[in-house]
């Protein structure tokens, strides 16, 4: 009897709780419906990257996340439904080496510029961002250029073109820094007319510069540790040491809190940096370009670094002569995490084709090739929990392609970031007459008319850099005079 009473009491409590819970749930559901879009992509070939290719599968995006992947999914009445029959869905491409949306790429006046931050010079209005979205790229690792042995701090962004700058920053991406070895930091191939001749001029100088910087960083850390210890001991009347913005990121590297992305080409300099890393007790996260990486694949794999490389770009300078297109395949076979990057606003629009080349060279499978532009760069940037594959719970950064992404005939239809559309081919085409109309109207306005007499000759476009300098991120965009 008592058990029955307890049971009834519990049941009534539960019964009382249900309506309240239901109320709470519907309120939050209301919030959800009001807040984020819900999109159902129906009947596509889904390249999940993590668990194979799924035919005739739906992908449900809700609240900026991938909510469900499966067949015959149901969505709420307010959802946007896209019929993707015959189309392919793939995660957004992640470009591990980009200089888009930066008003300045290089602080080339000193050899160690770890105090500068790409975060300070972001330009969210860069039109190349839109073009990259049209190529299926959704995340960029914005790096300092390769003018210096130790360059500046990076920024990982989602290409939310049209939004304020703050919304671009990838939430929770671990911080990183750029290093550069070889011809660029020692200025083999050009003379800067604004900067005086600078040390180092040889590879041994590059090594010394890096070693010296880390030695100073170690001393800087010791100085602050001593100050803090003195404070703890209760000593008053202490003047704190000077904060040195150049050395603080290096201390973070020593403490394992900042990823090192190092531009390098030759096998000897790769080994050199591994040696320094072991000496000072830190790990290199990625070697960038690494065109001779295949020669030291075992050492790179032992160190645990990733490699972010070009598919087949080679020969544009001496240190690129020994590059082979089988680099990715060889590194992968040795267990190195390999990604393909663009280092170029132009190549970032077609990274799918770069991946396709890896099927041709070295007999990579389609899945391995696609991994190099999705899951692998996600790991290299430390964001693999959020992007890089189509898995429930990950960010809704997905792209709808007209065909298989590894085909030259495929185009991007729609690009989603956090469940919102940032590129749609049909919308783009529909907007073009309006844009032309707006342009015609603006050109008729008085301030836009050419002067009645005389007038300067029109400017040659400044931002165009010759193709042979494409991979060399030492290019100074018009002396950064903006």
């Amino acid at each position, binding site marked *: 009897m008592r058990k029955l009473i307890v049971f009834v009491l519990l049941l009534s409590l539960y019964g009382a709780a249900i309506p309240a819970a239901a109320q709470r749930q519907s309120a939050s559901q209301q919030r959800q419906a009001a807040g984020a879009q819900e999109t159902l992509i129906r009947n596509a070939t889904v390249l999940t990257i993590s668990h194979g290719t799924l035919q005739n599968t739906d992908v449900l995006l809700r609240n900026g996340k991938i909510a469900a992947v499966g067949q015959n999914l149901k969505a709420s009445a307010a959802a946007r439904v896209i019929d993707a029959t015959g189309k392919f869905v793939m995660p957004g491409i992640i470009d591990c080496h980009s200089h888009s949306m930066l008003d300045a790429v290089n602080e080339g006046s000193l050899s160690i510029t770890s105090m500068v931050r790409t975060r300070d010079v972001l330009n969210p209005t860069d039109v190349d961002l839109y073009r990259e979205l049209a190529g299926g790229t959704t995340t960029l690792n914005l790096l300092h250029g390769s003018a210096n042995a130790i360059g500046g701090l990076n920024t990982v962004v989602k290409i939310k073109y049209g939004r304020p700058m703050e919304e671009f920053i990838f939430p929770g991406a671990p911080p990183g820094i750029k290093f550069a070895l070889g011809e660029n930091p020692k200025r083999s191939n050009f003379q800067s007319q604004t900067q005086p001749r600078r040390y180092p001029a040889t590879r041994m100088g590059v090594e010394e510069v890096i070693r010296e910087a880390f030695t100073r960083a170690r001393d800087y850390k010791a100085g602050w540790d001593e100050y803090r210890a003195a404070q703890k001991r209760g000593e008053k009347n202490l003047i704190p040491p000077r904060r040195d913005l150049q050395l603080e990121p290096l201390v973070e590297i020593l403490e394992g809190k900042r990823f090192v992305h190092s531009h390098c080409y030759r096998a000897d300099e790769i080994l050199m940096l591994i040696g320094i890393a072991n000496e000072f007790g830190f790990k290199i996260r990625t070697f960038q370009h690494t065109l001779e990486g295949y020669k030291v694949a075992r050492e790179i794999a032992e160190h645990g670094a990733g490699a972010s490389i070009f598919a087949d770009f080679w020969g544009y300078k001496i240190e690129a002569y020994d590059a082979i297109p089988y680099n990715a395949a060889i590194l992968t076979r040795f267990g190195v995490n390999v990604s393909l990057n663009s280092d170029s606003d132009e190549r970032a629009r077609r990274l799918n084709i770069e991946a396709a080349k890896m099927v041709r060279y070295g007999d990579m499978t389609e899945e391995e090739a696609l991994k190099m532009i999705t899951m692998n760069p996600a790991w290299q940037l430390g964001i693999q929990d959020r992007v890089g594959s189509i898995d429930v719970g990950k960010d809704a950064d997905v792209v709808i392609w007209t065909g298989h992404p590894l085909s030259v005939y495929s185009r991007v239809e729609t690009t989603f970031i956090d469940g919102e559309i940032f590129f749609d081919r049909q919308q783009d085409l529909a907007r073009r007459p309006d844009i032309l109309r*707006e342009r015609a109207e603006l050109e008729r306005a008085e301030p836009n008319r050419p002067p009645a007499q005389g007038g300067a000759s029109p400017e040659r476009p400044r931002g165009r850099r010759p193709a042979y300098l494409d991979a060399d991120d030492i290019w100074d965009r018009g002396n950064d005079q903006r």
Partner: protein
Amino acid sequence: MRNSPLRITCALVAIFALVAHVAPVTRAEPQPAIETYAITNARIFPVNGPVIERGTVVIRRGLIVAIGPQVTAPADARVIDGTGLSVYPGLIDANTTLGIPQPSASPSPAAAGGGGRPGATQPPPVLAAAAFSPNVTQPPGLRPEVLAVDLIQTSEAQIEAARSAGITTALVTPREGIFIGQSALINLAGDTIQQMTLRSPVALHVGFTPLRGGYPGSLLGVFSTLRQMLLDAQRLREANQIYARSPRGLRRPEQDRSLVALFPALAREIPVVMHANTEREIGRALDLAQEFNLRLIIAGGADSWKMTDRLKDVPVLLSLNFPRRMTAQVPEADPDPIRVLRERVDAPKTAGRLANARVRFAFQSGALATPSDYIANAAKAVENGLSREEALRALTVNAAEILGVSDRMGTIEPGKIANLTITRGDLFDRNARIAHVFIDGQPVELRPATTTPTGAGGTATGTWTLSVKLTEGDQSVTLVLQQEGEALRGSIQGALGSGQIANATLSPNGELRFTVPVTIGGQTNEATFTGTITGNEMRGSVQIVGRDPGTFTGTRPGGGGPPSAAPPRTPPATQSNTPPAASAEMTGTWRLK
């Protein structure tokens, strides 16, 4: 002489003469002839109250003493009949470089055939001060201790041009740098800078242009340098406080006058003006000010209307230098991007939008080449959504409030400084003319500027035919130059390819310097041209990246060049004599001061 009366008379005459010679002549201080003025029967805009349709303003000894419809002119006043005139508080230009001399291009001693006349160049005060200032730790451009008030040359022609265009007061800052220096608010008339100065320092100014040749050489480095110096200043302030309390056992902190100059900004005692136009530049300024808790003022503000939500407590010194298309119509040229087209159309609307969003703003000329465009462009803003009252406030009291002098100027109230701008017709009417300008209670002689600036060699404008001598031989190049006030634009065409010039400077002595991309043998590199213009000839040297240096000579068609592309709105004011075009000619009317 036996005759007593005659002897006495002689003695008296002698004494008198002696006294007259020796006795100190009580010389009265040279007073201006007239100290009191009354402008009667005029339409008066006090700005702090309603318009007075017909009234009188009385000013005496540099101050306003009375204003009102019933006020009568005192007996000793010089009366100016204000029928048909409108009286406004003196107009303020809230951000200029008036009176700061241009740094001249240093003559290159090795320039073959180039270089100026021997001994002709004086080191310009700006660079001289920078180079020889004692015990300076920071390079030029990173010296917040530089005071504009120490650099202003009161005889600069631009000051005269500005006041003749109705501007009575200007905020003056040094010309370049990252920590540009500290500005001064000056009246644009007076014999010495001490007489003209209203307030100094007013604000610390920050620009985001990298230094040339050294760190920071890019925008990246600019922000790191700003951040590091502000951190160092914070630390020095803290260290000084700790050391002052108890120095024993502590190493003395090393003093750095540049860092010490940042203390008032860090303590929010002095505002920090950051020069920013695009949305992202304004965003960066806001972020930096927030990081160090600075009292921010934005100068420029072209895109400020797009981010009014972040500018609630941030005043804007809005530039009236509206962008215009300067390039000729060339069918095969790339069209301007839509963004640029939109910016040009949006510029006059910005003020109205800021007013609607309740953002505090004042106008600045933004380095307008033609001073009379200042009022003309304010009138354009009125045509594009800004009310007349708001426009007048932006030219007067708003600037005074933002710059901290509203207790002594900016409106027509008794006791305030007697700066008045008096126009025939309403200030914002198309055919308004400046009738009188009073600065510190004295009328100013109005000499409206001509379109050609004064300078030893006249203007550089024209189409020059250059012969550039390189190791490859003589190259024929056409150089089109266009000088507007201080801005020098142009382009090259011919054997060295075509390109737009940049970094162009022209000193008053005719020393020219610019950079331009040149193409030789399929390779494009940057070339630096340094030379001198004498009349219709120029000669100098050229340095191309990665090549041996060369020399060049050039000529332009005689007669001082065509009056090319005059700024589109020439003021209806009367033109005075154009100064002599070529330095060789002495003919003309010379005004001897």
